[in-house]
Structure formats: structure tokens, C-alpha cells
């Protein structure tokens, strides 16, 4: 059984904007799934529909086999949502926000309080339990929304950019926490603009653009599509004469100099990187350290989105040409 199954999901807003043109998704039970897309691609609309905050125009949704049109209550009981925007009462106390959310799912107050304590402790918010939500920092507010989403122990947790604006230390601890939750059996769907986050946490991925699913595969097979990787090499000593890069044996590596201390190189996935280092060494160039120029997933993401947009533009041009021909 799939944790989430979406077929041909469409959404046209009242002002005529076609936000979703046909999104298809299948998320396995227990998966850690990345839902990516550029701004305005339709990710938040999709999540809004899955969580009952947005009315769909067409399509089918099943959550753990519960059809959204026939068993909405059962479907909703399985889902926990951490939205992109803060959406709690700023004048309520932290613990009340979490306990009340448990109440809305029919969880007795005592049990909801126990769970609130458990999750607030895990997310390092228990000390702030009696503080008004508006007094929390941005990172704390995000963690509060995670605790609130977990109080009814959902089988499917949906996180819409949960680490936006959060510092790296808290972000890492949130990753660790989410990995633990996932390891305990909770299926997680994550949307994020930090592609490093998606690459390190998620096993499967879907990319949405212009309201359509343009990629839906495992993270491994997606990353395999990447044929080249670009590295930045940091040199131990400044390179004064860049002409050496154009001569043999370095010319074949197509190295470019960024500044006196850094070089950039694009390497085929199956190429032997030691050969490059040997050749550099023979020319008296020592590499101190290196890093990927861009995140691998980021590179692929940009490529897929650009390709999709080119295709869309091509289709549009062809359509216009054909229409022009018809008019004539």
C-alpha cells in the first residue's frame, strides 16, 4: 500500500490561474520523499490539497488507501502537517498549542499533554512551554510546528520547507530528529529549497514544475543521470602563469583559473581523478583541498527544470506557428 497516491491532480483557482495541470505521485510507506520544484511550481498547492486546506479541481488522492473523496476524516487522521508559514495563535502558550492540536484529533487531554512533553523535550522546547508563541525565535517556532504536527503521531508527516531561515546548527539537529522519526516508521514528505537537505535525507524524489510532475524516481537513479561534476581546487601556492593550463598535459582537463589560488575543473563521472592530480603535480601545482562547485542534486534540478521550460516554450512556439498557419 502506498502512503500517498495522487493521480492527475488539478487545481484552477478562482481567478483562473491553473496551478496544477496534472500531478501524479506515489510515495511508499516508510519513505523519506523529496518534493521539489522552483517557486510557483505547485508544491504548496499540492500539499494544501493533500492536507485539506485547498479544494482540488480534479484528480484522486489516497492516503494509506483512504480515498479523499470517500473517507476524508480517516485520510486526515493519518497526516501531520508542518506548513511553510507560521500558522498558530501567537498569543497562545507553546504547550497549549500542541495539546489543543491533539484535542482536534480526538486525543484525550492527559495523553496529549504527555506527548506534548515528549516532543517538546526532543525538540528542545520544553523549557519554553509556558511562553507565548510570539516570544519564540524563528527556529523555535519551526520546531513548535513540528511538535504540533506529531502530537497525534501521524503515519505521514508532510514538511513544507521546515528549515527555511533556520541556522545551520538547528537545521542539522532537525535533520537528525526527522531521520529518527522516519526510522521509527513515519513516512515523510519534504519540500525544501536546500537541495543538500533533500539529497542527504531523502530516498525518493519528485520534481514539479508548472503544475506537472517532470521527474519521479529514486534519489540514486536521479543522481546517476549526472554525467559530469564540477570541482573547485584550492592550490597550496598561487599560480602566476596561467598559460601552463593550456599546454600539455593539463590542456586535456580543460582547467580554468578562477583566481591565483583556485582552479575549476569539470570531470566526467567515470574519469580517473588521480590522473588530473598526477598531471598537476608534474607541473609543480599542488592541490590543498577541493569541493563540489554546486550540490549534485542542485545541478540536476537546474538541468531538469531548464529542459522542461525549453520543451514548454518549444511546444508553445509550435502551437503558435500551427495556429498562424490555420488562420492564413
Amino acid at each position, binding site marked *: 500500500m502506498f502512503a500517498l497516491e495522487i493521480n492527475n491532480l488539478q487545481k484552477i*483557482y*478562482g481567478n483562473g490561474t491553473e496551478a496544477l495541470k496534472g500531478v501524479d505521485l506515489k510515495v511508499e510507506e516508510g519513505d523519506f520523499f523529496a518534493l521539489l520544484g522552483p517557486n510557483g511550481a505547485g508544491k504548496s498547492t499540492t500539499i*494544501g490539497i493533500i*492536507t*485539506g*486546506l*485547498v*479544494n482540488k479541481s480534479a484528480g484522486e488522492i489516497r492516503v494509506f488507501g483512504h480515498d479523499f473523496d470517500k473517507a*476524508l*476524516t*480517516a485520510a*486526515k*487522521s493519518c*497526516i501531520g*502537517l508542518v*506548513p511553510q*508559514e*507560521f*500558522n*498558530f*495563535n*501567537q498569543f*497562545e502558550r507553546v504547550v*497549549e*498549542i500542541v495539546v*489543543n*492540536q491533539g*484535542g*482536534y*484529533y*480526538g*486525543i*484525550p*487531554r492527559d495523553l496529549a499533554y504527555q506527548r506534548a512533553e515528549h516532543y517538546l523535550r526532543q525538540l528542545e522546547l520544553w523549557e519554553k512551554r509556558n511562553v507565548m508563541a510570539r516570544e519564540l525565535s524563528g527556529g523555535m517556532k519551526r520546531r513548535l510546528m513540528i511538535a*504540533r504536527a506529531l502530537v497525534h503521531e501521524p503515519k505521514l508527516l508532510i514538511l513544507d520547507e521546515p528549515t527555511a531561515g533556520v541556522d545551520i546548527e538547528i537545521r542539522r539537529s532537525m535533520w537528525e530528529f526527522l531521520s529518527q522519526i522516519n526510522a521509527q516508521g513515519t513516512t515523510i514528505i519534504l519540500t525544501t529549497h536546500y537541495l543538500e537537505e533533500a539529497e542527504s535525507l531523502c530516498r525518493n524524489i519528485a520534481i514539479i514544475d508548472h503544475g506537472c510532475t517532470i521527474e519521479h524516481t529514486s534519489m540514486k537513479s536521479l543522481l546517476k543521470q549526472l554525467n559530469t561534476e564540477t570541482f573547485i581546487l584550492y592550490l597550496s601556492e598561487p599560480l602566476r602563469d596561467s598559460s601552463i593550463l593550456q599546454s600539455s598535459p593539463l590542456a586535456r582537463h580543460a582547467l580554468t583559473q578562477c583566481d591565483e589560488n583556485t582552479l575549476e575543473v569539470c570531470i566526467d563521472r567515470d574519469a580517473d581523478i588521480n590522473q588530473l592530480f598526477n598531471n598537476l603535480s608534474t607541473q609543480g601545482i599542488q592541490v590543498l583541498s577541493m569541493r563540489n562547485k554546486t550540490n549534485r542534486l542542485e545541478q540536476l534540478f537546474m538541468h531538469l527544470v531548464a529542459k522542461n521550460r525549453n520543451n514548454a516554450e518549444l511546444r508553445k512556439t509550435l502551437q503558435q506557428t500551427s495556429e498562424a498557419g490555420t488562420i492564413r
Partner: protein
Amino acid sequence: MTWSQKYIALKTIIIKEYLRFIRIWIQTVLPPAITTALYFVIFGNLIGSQIGDIDGFRYMDYIVPGLILMAVITNAYGNVVSSFYSAKFQRSVEELLVSPTPNYLILLGYVAGGIARGIIVGIVVTVVALFFSDVRIEHYGLSLLIFFLTASLFSIAGFINAIYANSFDDISIIPTFVLTPLTYLGGIFYSIEMLPTFWQSVSLFNPILYMINSFRFGMIGVTDTNLGVALGIIIAFNIVLFAYALRLLNRGTGIRH
């Protein structure tokens, strides 16, 4: 959701709503007490003594039921319209919308919150009235029924206002331009028999007139309107507005895109 889970969900909304207005009692419970005391001093004592009796009652005693019910109407309406609109504005209403709590329980919970505030303010105003008049209740059951149904009716009306509201201006327009005039012209301070025939007929189109007069009948035993008609109107308005509010909620008007 099982029935016991639904009960927990409803109880959660009611407790949250109750705590909300109790926490800010200086803004919610105290002002009606002061306003009513001023009404008693100015209209009851100073001006009332010049007016004489109405239907055999001192003017002060005659206006007590209307003043209590006016406080109930204003507070029940104000509680729900401000609470639900704030939830919309802060988007905390999404906490309820993503949950499996059925829409009718969300509506019932907010209405119960409005009724709770209406009851508490009604009791406070009644206590204030004890200092100025001999408060008595002729028909307890009827008084409580009208009190409860009126609080419920205006709580639902406040909910509908909040659903349609897009700004804080929108939640004050109806109370200022519709509710207050209808309440003041609903026979709180006078019997419609004191009006010219034409205005008596016009007054009969004001639903608040029936509520105030039936409540006055419950308390002191006099009324300008037929009791059966009054009860019918109040119950019918409750049913129609509840059904309409639920329909708006089910369609997601103002809260779902």
C-alpha cells in the same frame, strides 16, 4: 472519528474559546458591566424618574431585561466574530482545517464559546442590575430559553460575519451599522405602543424586538409581541443561520482556496 473523539475535539474548541475571553476579562467582561451601570444611572435614575411607569412597572425595572439581552447580543456576536476572524487572520484556523474534526463541530465549538461569553456577561449585568432595581424572574424556563437561543443566534451570526470578513473593518461594519441600530430600536428603552402606528408596524420587522419582548415577558411578565411568534422567529433564525454557516464552512468560503 468515534463519538468520544468528536466529544474531545468539541470540548477542546470550547475550552480554548472560553480561556481566550476569560484571560482578557478586562476587555471582555468588565466593559459591559460598566456600560450597563451607566445606562441604569442615566436612563434609569436620572431620565427614568421623569418618564414614569410603563405597563405598571417603574422605568428602571422595565428596561432591565432589554439591557441584559443587549449585553448578551453584543458579546455573543463580538466574541465569535473576533475570535474566528483572528484565527483566519493568523491562519491558526488551519489547525482545525487539517484535523479530522467535522465542520459542524468547529461551528458548534465557536458558537458555544459565544454562548459562554453571553452567559457570563449576562450574569454580570444582572448582578449590576441588582444594585439599581428589584430584579425578578416570572418565568425561569422561558427566560433561560430566550437567553440561550438569543446568545446562540448572535454567535452564529458573528461566525458568518467572520467567514465573509477580509479585514478588521469588515468585522465592525455589521455590529456598528446593523446590530446596534436594530438593538436600540428593538424596544429596550420603550414599549412600541408608545410609537405612532406606522412606526409600530415598521418595528415588527425587527427580529430583535421579539427577542427583547419575549425575554421581558420571561422576567417581568409583560410583552409587546406574541410569545409564540417570537419563539418561532428565534428558533427559525437559529436553524436557518446554522445551516447557512455550515454550508459556508463546507464550501470553504473565506477559509479554503
